[in-house]
């Protein structure tokens, strides 16, 4: 099979790749680029473990072909933290014990990130809807929902604290 050239930005890094057109985005991330944080659970778009952000929107990377992301921007779980500093969403997951076995976690984090980037103060129903395509067998979802709801507060509170600190100085 002939390969095609694609150019894609993943976690702020530019990649130029020659890839077979039948390779999925999930396979490309895991097998070509070694970004194994994104998980493979069902390969039919049901479990959501492979969720990544494509141009800011959560997608099942098992249902996207690699050539489709040519010229696009992808963010995976590896792109959430800035160096050693975790995203408030990740911190919130740690604080709420929202991580059990952790296999669904990367996908849920990306679905939640997609929600929080576009919704300032999501309700319980909005949070549950946003992760309804992500299956978790361990947690019963409760701590995950709480972590996502609180993550935004944490961000806002942090923002407030920062603003407060700025005005003091």
């Amino acid at each position, binding site marked *: 099979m002939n390969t095609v050239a694609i150019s894609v930005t993943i976690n702020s890094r530019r990649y130029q790749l020659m890839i077979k057109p039948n390779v999925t985005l999930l396979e490309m991330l895991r097998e070509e680029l070694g*970004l*194994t*944080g*994104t*998980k*493979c*659970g*069902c*390969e*039919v778009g*049901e*479990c959501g*473990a492979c969720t990544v952000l494509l141009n800011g929107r959560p997608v099942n990377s098992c249902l996207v072909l690699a050539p489709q992301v040519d010229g696009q921007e992808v963010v*995976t*779980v*590896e792109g*959430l*933290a800035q160096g050693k500093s*975790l995203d408030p969403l*990740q911190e919130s*997951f*740690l*604080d*709420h*014990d929202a*991580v*059990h*076995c*952790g*296999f*669904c*976690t*990367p996908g849920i*984090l990306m679905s939640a990130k997609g929600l929080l980037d576009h919704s300032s103060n999501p309700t*319980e129903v909005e*949070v*549950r*809807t946003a*992760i*309804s*395509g*992500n*299956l*978790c*067998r*361990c*947690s*019963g*979802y*409760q*701590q*995950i*929902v709480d972590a996502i709801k609180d993550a935004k507060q944490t961000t806002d509170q942090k923002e407030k604290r920062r603003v407060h600190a700025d005005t003091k100085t």
Partner: protein
Amino acid sequence: IVGKPERRVDSWGKVTGRAKFADDYNVGHQLVGKVLRSKYPHANILRIDTSKARALAGVHAVLTAADIPGSKVFGVVDKNQAILAEDRVRYLGDGVALVAATTKEIAEKAVSLIEVEYEPLSVVSDPEDATKPDSPVIHGDKNEFVHHKVRKGDVAKGFAQSDFVLEKKFKTQFIEHSYIEPEAVLAEPDEQGGIMITGSIQNLFSSRRSVAAALNLSLNKVQLVQATLGGSFGGKDEAMTSMCCRAALLAMKTGMPVKMVNTREESMLESYKRHPYVLYYKWGAKTDGSITAMESRIIADGGAYASMSQFVTWRSVVQATGPYYCENVKTDVYAVYTNNNYTGAMRGFGSPQVNFAIESMMDELAEKVGVSPLEIRMKNGFETGAVTATGQKLTHVVSLKEVLTKAAEAIEFDKKWIKYRNASKAEKMLGVGLACSYRGVSLGAEGTDAAETIVSVQTDGSVIVSSGVTDMGQGAQTQMSQIAAEVLGISMDRIQFLNTNTSRVADSGPTVASRGTIMGGSAAKNAAENVRKTLLEVGSAMVSVDPKQLDLRDNYLVNAANGQRLASFAELATECFNKGKPMIGLGWHKSPKTSWDEEHGQGEAYFTFVYGANAAEVEVDTETGKVDVKDFVSVHDVGKAINRAMVEGQMCGGVAMGIGYGLLEEFEFDDGIPKQLNFDEYLIPTSMDVPRIKTIIVENEDPTGPFGAKSVGEPTNELAAPALVNAIFNATGRRILEIPANLERVLLGHKLARHDKRGSEKKDSTDAMMVDSCKIRGEKQ
């Protein structure tokens, strides 16, 4: 530190994508292993021709059973499960041949080129049919392969004393574990002629025994390393043993590393399930609600292989009459072979099935006597000092009534139960339901019960903990770390936990039966106490204070009386090293004695028990049969919560899985052919199906556990289904006798099955005893 909601020791890696699950391990020049599985649920293999597959470029090996140098079969109880089928396949998931190739595409192509000639045999897919004389026999000379009994008093006398008899037949379904991570291993030939396998393995030591036997290697040549496990729930035991053996065979044959990863379809096709049970319950009772006789006959579908059926059904026989007083008990539990997927360990391990029957019967009894479901349980429920059906006197704190009362109060049970019961018929009907249970902790009289944990202090005061007990996401690593930190008086950030490696810790048995905390945790406590003793002795010489007057607190050696800091933990650790003292603590824990008399079904089955209660509130759509769970309360006496957040997490997760069991999930077979192979058809609860769950932790500390802790993993998963069906009864007056309580059963009282012709429908069950589920409250029985 114990009792606090500390962050999990493994969670940083899991939110950053750094955690390495089995499929995330890769090495250079690894081959891809694939399995050819059976074409029929039951057939003789006449001929296997692998020549075309071997000839394909890129193929390094094609193996059949003939190529296995050692034992061709494995099994914990009966070694009758084939690594690769030799002359006969017994279910559709049986492996027939293996391929190792340079790429997945070539491996799959090679699998398709293997020619197998079968002689199909007649199939038995129903456990009750399997005991009939005309049934095909799957192993040996009969399909019944387990019979456990419990005998107490005289049931004939008990029924004679009764005012009335309640008799019901219940059925439960196959359940797929549905760990989100499919099975995966990487097998690498090592430098000494042995093999190292890294994988998603729950019970490393039993898998290691089978790999060693298959390859004719001694145990020290087979190193199994646990990768971070993406859920297991009892499921990554034999399913991983077969995968480990196959990958190891390919790796040893080719001399190359071999990776094997199941697709979801392969996983569901081959892996074992939770046993479906057929349960015949007959109780004699008096008009005051007391129970004079309990007779139960239970048939478990063991599927194609023995697996853990012996142990699963033993727990069922011990717990089959619930936490209720009765002088006359006769229980028989059988396991039979069929051509369905084999069945084995799954969270609950023989209790979800019997609890569904017991707790449904208890509500039927309340209905007959004319009291509330809470009242009937308070009347019959065990108290401290009660003697169980197996003749065991319960000397620990029996908190059954405490957990029941708390669950009932939290959901306002009595008030709602009356209100909903008397509500006039509407499109949406509300209902509340209760269920409670007692559960034996750890393995009990099933087998030897011991575990090892190692605590190793480094010269800078950091600590490494490792154990033979595995973490599959439940948090065992964190619990053991917290216990070690508590004993050593250090903060959690000082501790690094290592994944289990069979060559570096002692065989600690399987991480099953909710024994992680009580066994691994007790061993961690012993290990840390051993190091602590050394540290205090060294500290005593260092600061010239009697060791009895010293303590370890907040990363310091302190004066026990006034808390004065005498040296930092790091200084103490360095001093220990300089003095040449051992800085490693080996902790071993063996559980208290249990006993069992198989012939009479009597004995001290478990060294202690836990108690739990669930309360559910549902809304039933009487036009569609859809059940929405509106509210849920989960109450468990865990002895002592080592980590409250993790205990609450176990409770929420257990309830969610229980909601799946009660309302949604069913792995179905059509004459031995599975009907669901991925999550598009096998439906597990999503975030929209699970309500907010109120969790209530009760703590009656138990001397048999570390800091009084007992267990929580499985009890949380064994009560939701009966609480839900009892709530449906409160809402609709319809008694669900077969789970899941899906739309058809709730609306029509029976399941529908497809006719061969599309668009037509038929009743699945014409069973006289099951037709009873159509009976509405108040109708003549």
